């Protein structure tokens, strides 16, 4: 049973899939209907791809499918045959961190940290594509990622910082 309890999986329906995962060619034999999120976590130990809600809403499972940020709980693994998946684990090489990750640290945009990988994955796509970045634009880009801890302001500060605009960090009595 999968975490949601609904998709049984296994049995006669297993198929071989091969795809690129965080820069590596991988393969797996799996029920193609199984959510990508669960395959990444269970078969490939990519536990930075989180489980957060049952409604496809929260965005903690966000990864990149080819160039696009997507919610991996809403994609059947069968869809990724021959394609490229990047998780938070594969965003950078070795000990490097992405400037958005650095900005999150500097802006104190992390409390429990559970939502952070999802925000980073959505954010990297957004910042790569965005022509113009302001707070409203950032909020709009992050609609699919929920944070229960921070109240979002410092997350938005981090994005401004990463985009190289304004000072970023807010003082406690602002």
């Amino acid at each position, binding site marked *: 049973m999968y975490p*949601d309890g*609904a998709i049984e999986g296994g049995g006669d329906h297993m*198929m*071989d899939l091969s795809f690129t995962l965080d820069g590596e060619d991988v393969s797996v034999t799996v029920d193609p*209907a199984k959510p990508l999120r669960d395959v990444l976590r269970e078969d490939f130990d990519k536990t930075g791809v989180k489980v957060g809600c*049952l409604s496809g809403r929260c*965005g903690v499972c966000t990864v990149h499918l080819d160039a696009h940020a997507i919610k991996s709980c809403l994609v059947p693994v069968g*869809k990724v045959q021959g394609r490229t998946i990047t998780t938070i684990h594969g965003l950078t090489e070795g000990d490097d961190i992405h400037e958005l990750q650095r900005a999150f640290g500097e802006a104190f945009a992390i409390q429990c940290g559970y939502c952070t990988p999802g925000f980073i994955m959505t954010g990297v796509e957004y910042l790569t594509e965005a022509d113009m970045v302001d707070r409203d634009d950032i909020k709009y880009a992050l*609609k699919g990622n929920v944070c229960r801890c921070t109240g979002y302001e410092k997350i938005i500060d981090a994005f401004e910082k990463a985009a190289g605009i304004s000072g970023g960090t807010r003082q406690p009595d602002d």
Partner: protein
Amino acid sequence: MTSNQRSSDKYIRPESLEETLQLLANSPTGAKVIAGGQSLMLFMRQGLLDPSQLIDITGVGRLAGIEINDGTVTIGATTSYQQIESRLDEQFGAVLDAVKVIADRQVRNLGTIGGAVARADPALDILAPLYCLGASVTVRDIERRRVIPIDEFIQGYMDTALRDGELLQTISFDVPSSEEGSAYVKHAKIAGGWATVGTASSVSINGDRVESLQVALSAVGDTIVRATSVEDALIGAVGSPENVGDAVENLGEDIDPIEDISGSASYKRSVAKNLTQRCIQTALSRAVGTT
């Protein structure tokens, strides 16, 4: 896939329209077409659907892309909201407005216009604009092709005219003229959430008079609802804010929203009036060219 990889009947990716239609003609009961999967995966994870086969149509060229030819826009069923947003400009006011308020960027990267039309939930934002634009749907099976106006294709709550073996291929509508303007306005409880109410309108003007008007609402009935009383009250009249306000007073005759998690019926009626007024005003400004 390489030849020594195990394939499965459960997940098939046809490469052509012909192959897809063959598969549908012979598919087992419980086979489902999947494009973006943004609705389907949720139904599956919630235990509402358990397809015996998934036919992934996103590799079929003839189901993809946007063509604008001879005054007609034809959008392939597997075109994602993100692709629509990058291809269509402000001339397509209502469609573009709707795409921008659908869910969030992750969902829009994969979710498709064909998926929405096939699902036919009246709260899906892309639908009301398509009603206003008089869109039609082309469906195919292995034997024939049918072209169906969208308000006939959608027959009820999540109920369409799609028959067994049929596939939704494209959605088409006319390119708006320069005397036309359209808009979509939505109210949702949460950012990126389902519409409590949404209004689309498309208007054409002749001088300062409203020559034609279509007003369609999301999430206030089993299907998208045309606000014909509002339309009748404004067609032929001067498109002034006062006349728009007066026309919108008739909205109560056209809609019958139900109480649910989004709000009471009276709340929805009140929101619907405000949104409809705002929507028609914006469409008019765009028709005149001031927005």
